[in-house]
């Protein structure tokens, strides 16, 4: 099964407004993905919508967020259920700055329904870090039953390597490579963690442009955890440009 574990919807201020859950699911199905994960910045509020889209399309879906930690590092939290992802959203938002988003500066943040109606506009600036550290987030996410993945560790900004110098031990279930990361070079810096590659799509054309693959039947936290432990995940080739 092929999967893309890092996709932003229109709720992320930096993502295109065309990134509605229905469009994302349509694109992922067309690209042959068996599973996807919705990972907006600091919020899982578009997960109810994508759960319905995925159910209708018959594609596997995990729910979570791209959590920007107190260290200003991007990490992925992935869960089996929308409820778990929303519980993490509450925990993160309690530790977010109370500053109101200016859409002109950062971008719009619409929460939408499965059929593309706007429910509300998120008022917090989701482009900011929260006061939860990586070890605190790891403990919380694991206690909620989720997976914790260090995002795009090869990127020059907002990655564990750029921010902390290395990948901390004992926090993550796997690491993620970006679209362009050389597999051999970055596996050597992955501190022994299982490796994934996902699109980090902010535009519809980027959904499933890169992917990971594992011999799993059901698309779930448990099956991915086992695939990480078995080192049975294979990743798509690197792209030459982002």
């Amino acid at each position, binding site marked *: 099964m092929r999967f893309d574990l890092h996709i932003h919807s229109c709720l992320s201020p*930096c993502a295109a407004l065309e990134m509605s859950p229905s469009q994302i699911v349509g694109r992922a199905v067309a690209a042959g993905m068996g599973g996807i994960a919705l990972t907006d910045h600091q919020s899982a509020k578009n997960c109810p919508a994508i759960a319905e889209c995925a159910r209708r399309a018959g594609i596997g879906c995990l729910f979570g967020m791209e959590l920007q930690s*107190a260290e200003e590092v991007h990490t992925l939290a992935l869960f089996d259920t929308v409820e778990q992802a929303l519980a993490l959203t509450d925990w993160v938002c309690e530790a977010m700055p109370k500053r109101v988003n200016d859409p002109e500066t*950062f971008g719009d943040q619409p929460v939408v329904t499965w059929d593309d109606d706007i429910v509300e506009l998120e008022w917090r600036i989701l482009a900011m870090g929260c006061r939860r550290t990586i070890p605190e987030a790891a403990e919380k996410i694991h206690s909620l039953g989720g997976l914790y993945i260090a995002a795009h560790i090869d990127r020059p900004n907002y990655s564990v390597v750029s921010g902390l110098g290395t990948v901390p031990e004992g926090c993550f279930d796997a690491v993620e490579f970006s679209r362009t990361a050389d597999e051999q070079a970055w596996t050597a810096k992955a501190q022994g963690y299982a490796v994934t590659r996902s699109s980090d799509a902010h535009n519809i054309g980027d959904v499933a442009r890169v992917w990971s693959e594992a011999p799993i039947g059901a698309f779930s936290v448990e099956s991915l955890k086992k695939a990480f432990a078995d080192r049975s995940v294979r990743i798509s080739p690197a792209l030459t440009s982002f």
Partner: protein
Amino acid sequence: MTVREIAEKTRGEIIVDNPNAAINSAYASDLLSDVMGHCGDESVLVTIQNHLNTIAVCTLAGIEAIVVCHRRPVPNDMAEAAKRENVAIITTEMSQFEASKALAELPASSK
């Protein structure tokens, strides 16, 4: 202090100019949440954060110029946003400490 003077003192290159900037204080940080929390307006920010979000934070905080250290490259989307938002960008070979020393006649920015 003008953008040109900052560029001269840090032996830097002006990537995006802001000739009308009147910079009265300086702040050095690589953590944008810290910048948001503590940097006041009419200021220059010494940092290595060479990406688009830095400009958004400057806009919110009223920062009028950024000195990007270690000659980190300025991506196009960052430069475009800086032009739009009237934030000057200067790149320098200097480290954050060296650039801060070079600008030491400016008072520390706070809010």
